[in-house]
């Protein structure tokens, strides 16, 4: 299974047509796939809170947005999640590269990994964790759930899910 294509197909099938990204090595393939997808307007952002602002605007303009980013971004976006996305009750699927988990080679990434689920739980953000490739089968349901409840929803995707991080 090509998970990059599967993820992009699920976004399109759920009418998501506006996607902002801040890159991560693990996300390179899916970002490429989205960039080449005619049904999706791909707008790279310079910081994840900026990206959430873009998504809020697109949602109010009648389009379904999504953001793709690394888990370090949770540290950047707490205020934006609380005072924009949650306060105004907007849906936002967040496909998140979960760095600092099993098969991670960069020690510093663990420092945010240990806070990631706690911060998401503190924010009452529904959180899913993809560890095996087959977990991607739930993405379609998670996207439907997100736009049903009008909340930000986190999908953490770790190195094992992406098939490892390099050859370590």
């Amino acid at each position: 299974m090509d998970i990059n294509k599967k993820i992009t197909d699920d976004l399109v099938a759920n009418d998501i047509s506006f996607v902002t990204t801040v890159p991560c090595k693990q996300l390179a393939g899916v970002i490429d796939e989205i960039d080449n997808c005619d049904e999706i307007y791909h707008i790279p952002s310079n910081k994840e809170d900026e990206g959430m602002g873009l998504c809020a605007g697109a949602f109010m303009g009648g389009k379904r947005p999504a953001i793709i980013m690394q888990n370090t971004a949770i540290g950047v976006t707490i205020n934006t999640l609380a005072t924009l996305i949650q306060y105004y009750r907007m849906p936002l699927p967040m496909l998140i590269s979960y760095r600092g988990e099993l098969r991670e080679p960069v020690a510093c990434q663990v420092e945010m990994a240990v806070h990631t689920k706690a911060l998401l739980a503190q924010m009452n953000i529904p959180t899913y964790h993809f560890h095996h490739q087959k977990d991607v089968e739930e993405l379609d349901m998670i996207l439907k759930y997100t736009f049903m409840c009008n909340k930000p929803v986190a999908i953490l995707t770790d190195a094992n899910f992406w098939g490892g991080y390099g050859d370590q």
Partner: protein
Amino acid sequence: MIRSEILKEIAPILRDQLVVCNIGIPSQELHAIDDQPTNFYMLGTMGLASSIGLGLALVQPKPVIAIDGDGSVLTNLGTLPTIANNTANNFILLIIDNGSYGSTGDQPTYAGQKTSLAAVATACGCDHVVECQAEDTGKVLQEALDSSEMTVIVCKCESGNAKNPVITMDPVVIRDRFMKAVQA
């Protein structure tokens, strides 16, 4: 002129447009001067008015004016390259540059010192950047609307705030009526 005087003067132009208004006193002033369903008031999240405005402009055809401040743009400077590289000719970023953080006690910003936001926007690749004095804002804004070209306006004005109550409207109500106005 201070920001509230500018907003009063341009209110007749803003009335027919989709407006995303910056957090704090700017939104309170606009709300007090001319509350409209076409106004989206930011109650929090400093710095994102321009990003919300750009996202909105990119996905639908109506003109969008984001009213921002110099302090807020400095908070989210990364917005300017994103604006420059994602052309939305229905988008106007109106930066009311009073050289201070008005909502927090008029502390000076760097835009009131050596930093030129118009020069920054130009360096970021924004093609149409106009710096104007407060008195000319209405004329420049109308020209930008008529040009149908994405424009960044940096309006230089004096520091100071009008006294208005905080906005007590529920955020979901603000968002819902704004979305209905977008679709109308």
